[in-house]
């Protein structure tokens, strides 16, 4: 499906006015943040593990073709089938074909960003199949026909009353008041789907090249059910999800889980190697692993931004980001939001579609501080900003800087280079501010171009005595 040009500025302005969303986002990100912080404090080795995790990822990405071939060989040896998809459309097509070939009518899906990237549910429905999201948060927003607002807790913008009404409307249940009751409804309703679905689709947290094993991390149990009960299991992964050795798993699992939710261990981790063995009593008869490119090889080819592929999708960067915390996921316009969305969406969809995203950041670097694989977000964001400027220049927009920005930078340079001019301007600004100074000593609304600051924030008043002067006086004492 064609993605429209992402309008971060417009959508985030709208999001800022949504007080309910803001409250929910703050609660969610605070909760995840303090859990992650607690986990890292209790776990001294975390810093060392992060270094090792980055090493593993960098070794993998630098030799990606080698490890993908190894993965293919070992999954095949284990009785699984490998499919390669150049892009999202091909990935969807392959999965639909597997379903149609297997006489599938109902598909149960566990949480997978990759499947949302390729809009798999849409493709399945178009082919006449029913696809049900089984992760509780995803199930709720599927019923509500909405998009997720947070990578780990997609329905966080919905209150329990919203959900209660939604269930009673769509599932004909009484209007419940407690989360336990609502969860029970979801459990019973989805149980029927798990037991009748012919195919389960999952994502992949890590795919081990050495053994052909995929690892899936979860808390609810829906991934286990989706990958165990139906006859066919299809797993979709981006090419960057492969890791070299079985022994790399404990390192990556530890950093993933602690960075994502602050837990020591998620409730369930499944390590799946091929379909069921012939003599097993349960488990899927068929295991398919779809390895998808969809723009990742383009990121790979760019040395400056290649580390974007190290991402293990933990969500820690979202929870720490001062921008994301305010506006939530919808403003980023696609399935990936927060800092990781700001760097991979422009690279996967193209600069033209997402030129505002590299600027959706204050470059504070908090994301780099918490990233379990130490992605240097600010470096990548700056590189992408450079590309946006170059792209705009190509299209005759004379560089990305507008007239006022260039004028302002020039004025700044001149006043900074000339000491007396600077002193004079500082002195004068105390008087010049007078018409806009409020009774409580704030500058609430300045004229253009300063209004671009004061629209959203107040500036403090310019002091009577400059710091330089006061420092001189203090030192004399």
């Amino acid at each position: 499906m064609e993605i429209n040009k992402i309008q971060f500025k417009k959508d985030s302005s709208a999001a800022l006015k949504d007080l309910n969303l803001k409250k929910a986002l703050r609660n969610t990100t605070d909760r995840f943040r303090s859990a992650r912080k607690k986990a890292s404090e209790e776990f001294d080795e975390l810093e060392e593990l992060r270094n090792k995790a980055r090493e593993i990822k960098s070794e993998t990405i630098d030799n990606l073709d080698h490890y993908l071939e190894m993965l293919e060989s070992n999954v095949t040896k284990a009785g699984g089938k490998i499919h390669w998809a150049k892009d999202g459309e091909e990935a969807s097509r392959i999965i639909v074909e597997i379903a149609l070939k297997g006489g599938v009518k109902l598909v149960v899906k566990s949480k997978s960003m990759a499947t949302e990237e390729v809009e798999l549910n849409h493709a399945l429905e178009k082919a006449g199949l029913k696809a049900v999201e089984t992760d509780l948060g995803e199930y709720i927003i599927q019923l509500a026909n909405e998009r997720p607002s947070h990578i780990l807790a997609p329905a966080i913008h919905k209150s329990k009353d919203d959900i209660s009404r939604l269930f009673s409307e769509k599932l004909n249940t009484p209007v419940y008041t407690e989360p336990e009751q609502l969860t029970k409804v979801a459990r019973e309703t989805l149980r029927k789907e798990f037991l009748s679905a012919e195919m389960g689709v999952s994502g992949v947290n890590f795919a081990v090249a050495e053994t052909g094993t995929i690892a899936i991390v979860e808390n609810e149990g829906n991934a286990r059910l989706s990958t165990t009960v139906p006859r066919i299991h299809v797993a979709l992964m981006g090419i960057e999800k492969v890791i070299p050795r079985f022994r790399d798993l404990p390192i990556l699992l530890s950093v993933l889980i602690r960075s994502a939710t602050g837990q020591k261990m998620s409730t369930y981790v499944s390590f799946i190697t091929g379909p069921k063995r012939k003599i097993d009593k349960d488990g899927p008869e068929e295991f398919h692993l779809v390895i998808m490119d969809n723009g990742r090889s383009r990121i790979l080819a760019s040395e400056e931004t290649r580390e974007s592929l190290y991402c293990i999708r933990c969500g820690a960067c979202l929870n720490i980001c001062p921008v994301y915390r305010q506006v939530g996921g919808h403003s980023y316009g696609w399935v990936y939001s927060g800092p990781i969305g700001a760097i991979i969406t422009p690279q996967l969809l193209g600069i033209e579609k997402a030129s505002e995203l590299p600027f959706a950041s204050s470059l504070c670097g908090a994301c780099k501080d918490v990233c379990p694989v130490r992605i240097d977000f600010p470096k990548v964001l700056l590189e992408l900003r450079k590309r946006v400027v170059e792209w705009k220049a190509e299209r005759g927009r004379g560089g990305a800087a507008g007239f006022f920005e260039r004028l302002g930078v020039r004025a700044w340079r001149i006043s900074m280079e000339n000491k007396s001019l600077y002193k004079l301007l500082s002195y004068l600004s105390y008087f010049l501010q007078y018409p806009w100074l409020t009774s409580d000593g704030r500058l609430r609304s300045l004229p253009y171009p300063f209004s671009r600051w004061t629209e959203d924030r107040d500036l403090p008043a310019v002091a009577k005595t400059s710091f330089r002067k006061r420092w001189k006086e203090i030192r004399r004492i």
Partner: protein
Amino acid sequence: MSRDSREEILRRIRKGLYGSTEPKNRPTKTKENLTNQEPKEITDEFLTNKKALTVQFLEEVRKISGNADFVDSENGIKDFILRFVEERGFQFFTVWDSDLLRSLNIRNTLESRGLQYASPDDKHEMAKADIGITEADFGIANSGTIVLLANERQPRTVSLIPSIHIAILKSDKIVGNINDLFAHITNLFVGVESVDNITSCMTFITGPSRTADIELNLTLGVHGPKEIYVLVLD
């Protein structure tokens, strides 16, 4: 078609990394010795003591809303199960056919008490089971995790479909942390002759199923079992 996509993707990757579309000679940058670089062990020397590991394990399971008990004899296990099943008034059960459970004769005993056995071959029968009883192949002390390896006598759905799960863990199978665990199990996955001897599914289970998707309220028992009981056998 998938063949062409395969070649195309590999071509793109090679071009992007090496500037040429020919596969590189290996190994040049692959750190084969990374496997031998063990991450620093978190386990204290003190904790390699079986008793200490058991105590830590029990504590951790309880911390995450699981139930854990230390049982000093095989009869104790049997008594617990019978009492539990009676108290709850269960009618259907399912159980692994592993060595310990076979020697404890759990299946026959429960059937003789009037309960019906649900076979993992049949998912609709399994859906009726009130309780699933398994062993645990390993336990991880610092997280309260049990490790289950699937095979023909240890089906996956026994610990998954019923709402209540009882797992019996021998205390000498408890290791300190996830690194210790992988030190023990890697040889079950790497360098194994025939894939028939590699488990199709290894599962880590840490407490009951949970979610915080509704207003961040922690709720237990979403899709997986609502309650878990780990019986640690001396």
